[in-house]
């Protein structure tokens, strides 16, 4: 590509969102070229500034070193403003007057309490597009419920169809409905921008994370109304394919998934594993028979997979025309040849942390531009002065704001940072002992080729 002119150049986003869903939304807008200006409060930092501290050591400015925060806030600027103070709200209103989009993720009463609800934003900037991301939406009896991602995947119903056969409902091992609703928010905002380009009108977007994820449950919702049946939990099996499952491979906790949609694909599996007779076996010859004798078939397939590396299983079966994939852990995904070839991880030179891999949030690849991260994640309040000067504030006014604690570049902590740092340190030695972690590799930066 000749240049990296991005679709949202010239679009300014005021980002009052915190934690995961909202920041994932605005991270996509930033990577598409928008000028995203994050807000934080000096009294209550984004909680992700205390999650997964680099090197599991929070003594030196932990809030600048939280990997969880870095990953979803690269490419943005940040100001730290106390919205409890009228001067702080005045700065915010001035900034919104220059903005195209406002994103927030508080529970519904909060923006109104700040005097920043949609009706008032519209007075400040008539064509503003405002997107509120919340757990349960802006109205209805649960509107004021606090929503965390780990609760919202279950609340969407998805956990009721996730779990081992005969076992209890389960969550995913991380809160995927958070980024999912953030992605939905980015698309909703692009839809509203398209409309504004044609009509000149802004609008308000009410995004409930619970509702955003329910369409994933559609087959279960329709089965319930059509047949009065609750879709059972079936582990890794599917009514759409047989065999389908996750099979143990050689090595410590290595796995591969295999999925055969029809008889032809199963026959290819049988041949690739050196067992063409499976396809002629009456127990396995049809998809119905394979569903019926799935346990027996899985045992046979496992004999083959357990002698092979999970990547061998994937490549051998894919070469034969069978759907298969290695189940990757957080290290393997960074080294996988396909993710590498397509540049899924950008190397970001992050202040205090050095070079670090940060995953794309906009997964689409384009030919005319690259939706990648363009700058490191902001330090706390890093752009206070820069942004306030752009709004026309003088040096003297900015100094006065800092003295009056309207703006800040340090958090107001009620306890010494050493105590916070101790609380943030996870007991990784014991986590290894209990197999919560597979390993810790001290030379990981050398392995990744990002050592200083």
């Amino acid at each position, binding site marked *: 590509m000749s240049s990296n002119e991005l679709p949202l150049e010239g679009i300014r986003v005021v980002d009052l969102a915190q934690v995961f869903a909202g920041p994932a939304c605005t991270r996509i807008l930033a990577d598409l070229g928008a000028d995203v200006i994050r807000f934080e409060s000096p009294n209550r930092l984004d909680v992700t500034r205390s999650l997964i501290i680099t090197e599991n050591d929070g003594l030196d400015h932990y809030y600048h070193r939280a990997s*969880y925060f870095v990953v979803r806030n690269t490419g943005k600027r940040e100001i730290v403003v106390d919205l409890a103070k009228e001067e702080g709200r005045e700065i915010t209103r001035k900034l919104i007057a220059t903005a195209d989009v406002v994103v927030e993720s508080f529970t519904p009463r909060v923006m109104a309490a700040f005097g920043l609800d949609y009706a008032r934003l519209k007075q400040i900037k008539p064509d503003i597009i405002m997107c509120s991301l919340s757990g349960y939406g802006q109205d209805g009896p649960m509107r004021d419920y606090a929503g965390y991602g780990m609760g919202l995947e279950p609340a969407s119903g998805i956990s009721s169809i996730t779990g081992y056969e005969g076992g209890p*409902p*389960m969550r995913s091992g991380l809160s*995927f409905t958070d980024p999912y609703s953030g992605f939905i928010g980015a698309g909703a905002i692009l839809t509203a921008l398209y409309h504004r380009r044609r009509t000149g009108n802004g609008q308000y977007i009410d995004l409930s994370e619970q509702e955003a994820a329910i369409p994933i449950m559609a087959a279960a*919702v329709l089965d319930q109304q059509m047949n009065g049946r609750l879709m059972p939990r079936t*582990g890794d099996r599917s009514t759409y394919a047989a065999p389908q499952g996750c099979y*143990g491979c050689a090595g410590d906790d290595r796995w591969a998934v295999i999925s055969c949609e029809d008889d032809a694909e199963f026959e290819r599996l049988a041949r690739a594993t050196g067992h063409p007779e499976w396809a002629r076996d009456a127990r396995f010859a049809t998809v119905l028979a394979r569903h019926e004798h799935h346990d027996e078939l899985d045992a046979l397939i496992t004999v083959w997979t357990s002698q092979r590396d999970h990547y061998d299983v994937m490549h051998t079966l894919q070469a034969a025309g069978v759907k298969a994939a290695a189940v990757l852990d957080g290290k393997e995904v960074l080294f996988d040849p396909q993710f590498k*070839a397509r540049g899924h991880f950008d190397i970001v030179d992050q202040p205090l942390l050095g070079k670090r891999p940060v995953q794309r949030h906009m997964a689409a690849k384009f030919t005319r531009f690259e939706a990648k991260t363009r700058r490191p994640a902001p330090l706390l309040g890093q752009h206070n002065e820069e942004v306030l000067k752009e709004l026309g504030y003088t040096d003297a006014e900015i100094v006065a704001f800092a003295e009056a604690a309207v703006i800040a570049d340090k958090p107001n902590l009620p306890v010494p940072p050493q105590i916070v740092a101790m609380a943030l340190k*996870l007991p990784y030695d014991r986590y290894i002992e209990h197999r919560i972690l597979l390993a810790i590799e001290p030379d990981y930066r050398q392995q990744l080729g990002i050592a200083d």
Partner: protein
Amino acid sequence: MSDRALTDVRVVDISQGIAGPYATKLLADAGAAVIKVEPPAGDYTRRLGPFPGDVPDPERSGLYLHLNTSKRSITLDVSVPSGQVVLKKLLARADVFVTGEKASTLAAWGLGYADLKAQFPELVVAQVSPFGATGPYADYDGNSLTAMAMSTIMYNTGEPDREPLATGGEPGAYIAGVQLWIGILAALENRAARGGGDHVDVSMAEAVAAADEYNAAMYGFQGAIRRRYYSRHIFGYPNDIMECMDGHVVVIPGAGGFPSPLVGDSVSPMALLFENPDLDQTVFFKQMGERMINWREFEALIHPFLSMHSAMEIVMTAQALRLPFAFVPNAADLLSDEHLAERGFFVRQQHPVAGAVTLPGAPFRMSETPLTMSPAPERGSANADVLVGELGYEQGDLTILSDQGVI
């Protein structure tokens, strides 16, 4: 009738299944004119169901009815030259072309991006494939499960001594569809600003990996490799689903639920919820790592309370204490949920063949251009409208194409 956001966008969609059709559903429900091009046998979701009474019927597949609202359907075999001729006439009048085929298949059909760009320089070509259009796995086949496997999410889901678990509902396909949708809108925005089409290339595996919360980050910032541990966060137990008197609840202490050096000496919200201030003095309430490792002992402390209270009591009380506990509804619970009903989330519609169906509503609400859903089309129901009415074919041409099995 209120304004539609994407009223002047014309989409031709040859994708099948979940990912591509969900992307074009989100465009169609926002007002784009989507022509769904199905193979003569129909999109394969027409064969997947669920079906009323479990009787397969291509016009009554629940999954199809959900994924294809607000579209028109034509049948066309795009794998044969005569079908490709018709398709190109459609593309000449389109802004967006959506496909779920792999790059090699498209190239064999003369529909590779280079060919399309030369003929239709303003066209946005949006392609979703299991591993993306380029790279060593470009020709590999896949589905939601392979995407979940590659993304790291699956490795971290499930019990520590059992196999990794796929999340229910084919989320990998939906996530890829949403990423495709965003990519299309970004390319349209770019076209509006600067002119020219683009190739939007989405890998299902990358789309799901984009939703990874911190598995790759734990290695890239700490050198730590996380396993699965009852689907629990690394931040500590609970944050997980637990059994109560009449079902399950999600026990989430949130940032301020347990005693914290940041909060001071008052009784913690978690101890208040469980009606026992002494719990704050236990090592399990004081230390996240202890809860995580010796979770069975922690669970023994709160189990008596949970087993004697209903999900409703527990979640309402917890929320009153600002603890973000949540319910664990199933499909029936969602359909009768008061909160969702008051928000008018589900959409009841009358389909000409399938009758009354209740579909999940829009994933977001827009104040000026609300998303609306008209029923999914019957297979090929717009053949005459599109081919005769818009492309100028004669009725007799349709008969010939039909006899050849092209439409």
